[in-house]
C-alpha cells in the first residue's frame, strides 16, 4: 500500500518563559493544543489519536505524566502514545504522529510536546548523581564545549562565528511573539563581550531554560483538503548511535550524516542548499549551526562556518536558519524539537508572520538529543509530494 500522504494543518505553541507560573502542566499543554486545533479548524473531539513527547520525567517529577494528563489533553477514550528520545524527542514525537497517518491507521492525529523546566532544576535532572560515577565537574555546557573546540580546530573557523549565529537568532526572536528571549540590541560585538562560560562558549551563545509546549495537528489527504495551506510531509527520518564509542566522530556524527542522506533521498532532493528554502535546526549552542550545516550536507565538511559568516543563514539569505529565534531563544527541552518541526511547517504554509521567509516552499525541521547521538528530521513542503 505504501506511505499515505500526510500534512500538518495546525501548529500551536505557548508563550515560552523561564517560568510559566500561571499554568499547570495540563494548562501549558492545552495552550499549545488549543492554538493548534484553532489553526486546523478542528476540535479535540475530531482527533483520532494523541502522541505525547517530553524529555526525562525527572524534570517535572512525574512518571509518565501523560497518564494523569490524558483527560485534560482530550485523550480519554482514544489511543495515546508517549515518546522519549532525549533532546530529539520533539522531533521524534512528530514523526511517530505522522507515521500514524502515513500508515493509514488514523486520519487526524494530535501531537504535543512540552517541558516545564521550572518545576525542578534542569541541570540536576539531566545528571542525577549516581554512586561510583564521578560527579559532573563541568556544568551544562561543559559536555558540548570540548566538541565545539574540536570543530574550530578541524575547520579552522574564525572564533567569532558563534557570535554571528547568536546575534542572528536573538534578532530573529524579536520577530517571534512566542520566543522566550527578546533581547533587544544583540550584536556580534555584544555576544563577544558576554561572559565566557565554557570556553569556547560564551553566555550569549547558550540556550535558556524554558517552560513551554508545542502541538501539531497532522492529517490525511482527505482532511487536508479542508485546509487553505497544508504543509505536506516530504520525508521523515530518525537515526541513533552511541553516546560514546571508540573513535566516534562527535563533531560530525555519522547518525546525523546518515539521517540527512536518507532524508534528502526520501524528499527527492539532490542539492539541499539549492532546494531547501529555509531550515529550523536544533542549535542549543551557537556553534552547532555551522556544525549541523555540514552534518546535514548543506556544505562540504569544514565549510559550514563560511555559509554562516557570509550572512546567508539570515532571513533573506540563501538558506535562512532558525527564523523563529531557534533553541537559542526558547528551550523547553521536550518541546524544542517539535518547535523546529512546527516552525518549518509554518514557513511552507506562509504562516510564520514577521519571521516568514518569502516564498518558502520546502523547509527542514531538525532535532538532536543525548550526546549528539539521536537525530530526527523532516522535510515539509507547500506542495503535495509527487513520489
Amino acid at each position: 500500500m505504501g506511505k499515505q500522504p500526510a500534512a500538518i494543518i495546525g501548529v500551536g505553541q505557548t508563550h515560552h518563559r523561564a517560568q510559566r507560573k500561571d499554568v499547570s502542566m495540563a494548562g501549558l499543554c492545552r495552550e499549545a493544543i488549543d492554538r493548534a486545533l484553532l489553526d486546523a479548524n478542528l476540535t479535540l473531539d475530531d482527533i483520532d489519536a494523541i502522541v505525547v513527547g517530553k524529555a526525562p520525567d525527572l524534570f517535572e517529577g512525574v512518571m509518565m505524566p501523560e497518564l494523569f494528563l490524558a483527560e485534560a489533553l482530550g485523550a480519554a477514550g482514544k489511543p495515546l502514545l508517549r515518546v522519549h528520545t532525549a533532546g530529539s524527542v520533539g522531533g521524534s514525537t512528530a514523526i511517530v504522529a505522522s507515521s500514524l497517518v502515513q500508515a493509514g491507521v488514523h486520519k487526524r492525529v494530535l501531537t504535543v510536546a512540552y517541558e516545564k523546566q521550572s518545576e525542578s532544576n534542569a541541570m540536576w535532572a539531566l545528571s542525577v548523581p549516581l554512586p561510583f560515577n564521578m560527579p559532573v565537574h563541568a556544568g551544562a555546557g561543559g559536555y558540548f564545549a570540548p566538541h565545539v573546540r574540536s570543530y574550530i580546530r578541524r575547520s579552522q573557523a574564525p572564533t567569532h562565528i558563534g557570535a554571528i549565529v547568536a546575534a542572528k537568532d536573538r534578532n530573529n526572536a524579536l520577530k517571534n511573539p512566542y520566543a522566550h528571549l527578546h533581547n533587544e540590541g544583540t550584536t556580534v560585538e555584544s555576544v563577544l563581550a558576554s561572559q565566557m562560560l565554557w570556553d569556547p562558549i560564551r553566555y550569549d551563545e547558550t540556550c535558556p531554560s524554558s517552560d513551554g509546549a508545542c502541538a501539531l495537528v497532522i492529517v490525511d489527504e482527505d482532511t487536508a483538503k479542508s485546509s487553505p495551506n497544508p504543509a505536506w510531509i516530504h520525508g521523515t527520518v530518525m537515526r541513533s548511535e552511541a553516546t560514546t564509542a571508540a573513535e566516534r566522530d562527535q563533531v560530525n556524527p555519522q547518525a546525523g550524516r546518515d539521517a540527512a542522506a536518507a532524508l534528502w533521498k526520501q524528499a527527492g532532493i539532490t542539492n539541499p542548499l539549492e532546494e531547501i528554502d529555509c531550515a529550523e535546526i536544533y542549535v542549543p549552542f551557537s556553534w552547532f549551526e555551522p556544525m549541523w550545516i555540514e552534518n546535514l550536507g548543506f556544505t562540504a565538511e569544514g565549510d559550514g562556518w563560511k555559509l554562516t559568516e557570509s550572512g546567508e543563514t539570515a532571513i533573506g539569505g540563501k538558506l535562512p536558519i532558525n527564523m523563529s529565534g531557534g533553541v537559542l531563544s526558547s528551550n523547553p527541552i521536550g518541546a524544542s524539537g517539535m518547535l523546529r518541526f512546527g516552525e518549518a511547517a509554518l514557513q511552507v504554509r506562509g504562516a510564520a508572520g514577521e519571521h516568514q521567509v518569502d516564498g518558502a516552499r520546502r523547509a527542514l525541521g531538525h532535532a538532536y538529543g543525548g550526546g549528539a547521538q539521536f537525530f530526527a528530521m523532516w522535510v515539509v513542503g507547500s506542495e503535495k509530494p509527487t513520489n
Partner: protein
Amino acid sequence: MSRTLQAPVTVAFDYTRSTGPVVGRFLTGLRDGIVVGGRTSTGQVVVPPLEFDPVTHEATTEFVEVSSVGTVTSWTWVPEPVKHQPFDRPFAFALVTLDGADVPLLHALDVSSPAEVSTGMRVRVRWAAERVGHINDILCFEPLAPGEAAATAPAAASDEAVEGVITTVSLDYDYAASPEESLFYRGLNEGRIMGQRCPTCQKVYVPPRSACPADGTPTAEEVELSQTGTITTFCIVNVPFLGQKITPPYVSAYVLLDGADIAVLHLILGVPADEVRMGMRVKAVWKPEDEWAYSLENIDHFAPTGDPDADFDTYKQHL
C-alpha cells in the same frame, strides 16, 4: 566478593509546581479549611475539581463548596506503609464521597485495624492546624460517630490565592554497577586503570562495557592502561554552578590514555587554564591512598608530563 558493586542512592528534589487556576482554587480552599469541588458540564460535582471538562474540554470555572463530611465508597488496608504516606503505622486508604459531591476523593483514613472500616461508613476531614494550600492540609479522614458534626478548621494564616505547591519527591534506590564497570571501579580502588578489549572490533574500552557500542559484544580481555595520555579536546570552565567542587577557571578535558581507544573526561590541573592545549601530554595524579574508593575520583586530576605535545594526526580520529 559480590559480582557487582552496589550502593544506595537517593534521588530527591522539592518540585515547585505551579497549579494553574483550578488546582489552585482547590488548594486555596484547603488552606482556608474548605473543600472545593468543580461542577462539570453534566452537572456533576467532582473533588478535586477537574482542570478541564471531560465532555466540553473547557477549563472548569464553576466551583462548589462541599461538606468536609462524607461516606466511604471503597477502602483498602495499608499494612506496611511506605515513606511519606500520611501515616507511618498501618492505616487505610479510602475513597470518600463528601456530602455535596458526586464522586469520591482519595485520602487516608485513620483507623487502627481493618475491622474498624466498612464501605458506607461516615467520616469527616481532620484538618491540619497549620495549612499552607497542600493536600496534606487534610491530615486524613476520621470516623464520624452518629450525631457528631464536621470538624472545624483553625483559621488560616493567609488569604492570598494559592498558585503553587511544593512537592517533595524522594526515592531510595539500590544502585548497581554492571560487572564490567565493577571491574573498572575495583581497579581504581587499587590504583589501577582497567579497560577491556572488544573481541569483535579489538577496540580497548575504558571503562569496559557490557556491550561494545559499535557491535553489541561485551568487552572481555582485561587491559591495564597507562597512567599517561593525551588531551584530545577540552573546555575551560569559567562558570560557577550548584555542587561545583573547584574554583573556576579550570579545565575539563578528554584524556586519551595510552593504549585506550576511547577518551575519559577528567580535570586538568597543575597548569594555568589558558596554557592547556589539544595534544598536551598528561599523567594521572592520584589522591592519597587512604582516600581511595571505588571511583574515578581517586585520580584527583591529570597534570602535564612536560613531554612534547602529540601530533594532531595521532588523535584527530578521537574528536
